[in-house]
């Protein structure tokens, strides 16, 4: 496996000074990132999730060379980001959801023209990449509009295009869908999927929106208090979180609660019953048994709410458990 991004026990410790009276300051160390190790292969699309202040943005800032790690080894495309920030800049694209890398008061196209020169993108390639972004991100009518007049969704699309003109090998997105409406979110996700499929661009995105992860990422990393709590497939997260799936059964008539271990009835409403069962169990034998023993009209399986899964994981996040969770 070609490890494109490599972190080996990376740490970031901040010293926070707090006022503790007139002129007196208390110093306190905050471990924003606490010994995180992972690798990302070329062409992977990875979701990086966690609550506010978990260390997601700090990790992204170390990966882009904005921040210098306090300890550990970090490589992106074989480059140490903190030492060779400008050399790395040619190979990465960065999108910050909450602030723009575009020039606020100038038309969108001016920012792109500047990127063209600043990144020394050959003319033909710049034209191709710009045309492609304009088409796929629907920027055609927006190029002459000053950035400050764009809506949040338009600006985000403009920012994504700006990050891709120099064809970076990896794209970092820090909360790319924050504050966007449903349509804008769908456009952004569709574009990212295509980028990853067609160009093989490695994508690492932090998000609060689990739908981003569900629709885009085959792999998810969960971070909390600076520690990696989980690294693996999205589906596996359910097992770690000991979550439950729900079987919604519509019977022909009202009947006493269905008896079908390992599932148990959590709710009855007329002929409809809700049964919970461990997410790790297969639904098939359960469904077969209920179909055989009860007069069944309709039935559906509901996946667990992943936010609940993660919340559960955070709640029980003793360090010992965390180590177990990291595969």
């Amino acid at each position, binding site marked *: 496996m070609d490890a494109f991004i490599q972190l080996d026990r990376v740490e970031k410790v901040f010293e926070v000074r707090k006022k503790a009276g007139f002129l007196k300051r208390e110093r306190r160390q905050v471990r924003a990132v606490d010994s995180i190790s992972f690798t990302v292969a070329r062409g992977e699309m990875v979701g990086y999730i966690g609550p506010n202040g978990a260390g997601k943005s700090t990790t992204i800032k170390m990966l882009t060379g904005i921040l210098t790690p306090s300890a550990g080894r970090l490589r992106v495309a074989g480059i140490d980001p903190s030492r060779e920030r400008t050399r790395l800049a040619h190979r990465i694209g960065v999108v910050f959801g909450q602030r723009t890398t575009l020039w606020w008061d*100038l038309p969108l196209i001016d920012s792109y023209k500047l990127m063209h020169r*600043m990144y020394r993108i050959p003319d033909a390639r710049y034209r191709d990449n710009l045309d492609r972004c304009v088409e796929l991100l629907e920027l055609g009518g927006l190029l002459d509009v000053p950035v400050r007049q764009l809506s949040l969704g338009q600006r985000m699309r403009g920012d994504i295009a700006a990050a891709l003109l120099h064809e970076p090998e990896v794209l970092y997105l820090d909360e790319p869908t924050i504050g966007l409406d449903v349509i804008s979110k769908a456009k952004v996700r569709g574009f990212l999927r295509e980028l990853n499929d067609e160009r093989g661009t490695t994508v690492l995105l932090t998000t609060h929106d689990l739908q981003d992860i569900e629709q885009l990422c085959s792999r998810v990393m969960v971070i909390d208090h600076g520690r990696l709590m989980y690294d693996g497939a999205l589906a596996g997260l359910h097992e770690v979180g000991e979550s439950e799936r729900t079987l919604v059964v519509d019977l022909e008539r009202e009947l006493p609660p269905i008896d079908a271990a390992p599932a148990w009835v959590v709710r009855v409403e007329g002929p409809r019953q809700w049964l919970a069962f461990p997410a790790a169990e297969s639904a098939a034998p359960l469904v077969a048994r209920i179909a055989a023993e009860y007069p069944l009209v309709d039935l559906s399986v509901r996946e667990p709410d992943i936010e609940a899964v993660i919340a559960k994981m955070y709640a029980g996040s003793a360090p010992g458990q965390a180590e177990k969770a990291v595969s």
Partner: protein
Amino acid sequence: MGERGRLAEGLRAYWLIAGMWVRSAMTYRTSFVVTMCGNGLMTAMDFVAILLMYAQIDSLGGWTLPEVAFLYGLSATSFGIADLVLGSMDVLGARIRDGSFDTLLVRPAPVLAQIGADRFAVRRLGRITQGGAVLGWALAAVDIDWTLPKVLLVPVMVVSGAAIFCSLFVAGAAFQILAQDASEVQNAFTYGGTTLLQYPPTVFGKDLVRGVTFMLPLAFVNWVPASYVLGRPYPLDLPEWAAFAPPLVAVACCAAAGLAWRAGLGAYRSTGS
């Protein structure tokens, strides 16, 4: 990439960004001309204050009007050039607060060049024009025997003075990284410095003059070399060659500011705030 490579990259990025702002300003020509004239007029009022003062007095601290105009012209022109080149640096603290400073760090260009060229405003030429006009009048009006060293010293003073003010802008920006709401502190030194230098050193206390000679060497922008040109005694008991020190002082200031900037940026990248 060596130091020379970084410098070349920085100048290139500066040129690209400043060029973008100039082109953008040129799309609204009328607005551009109006703001530039306004800028010139505003700074002109500055000198009018001195003219009004001389309507009542014949000399200030022993200096005549053309002599003070000479000081004023040198200080205003040097400062104007520095303000044109790096005048946007006082927003650095705000950019750190709102997080947009990070976006500069992910681009393949030196941060100093990017922040220095940000919002490059040609209208600031108004200040240089006004300073240059006063300097021109002063050169014609002062009564001195021009020698070759004196003639050569004038442009050297302007360039060195601009470099000294530039280093002040950069050092101030480095300080803003550590204290993000310190843009007023920076302004006190830059704008305050240029105003100070528009008056003869003889009207200020010895300690202040010592401070701006040895601590913050603003005296080399005009006071010391101008005293040589005008054939006046130096503000402090400095040797005669001190008048020719401005280029060296400028180089030293730029080096110190560069180190301060590097330290500030390093501190930012290790603390993130």
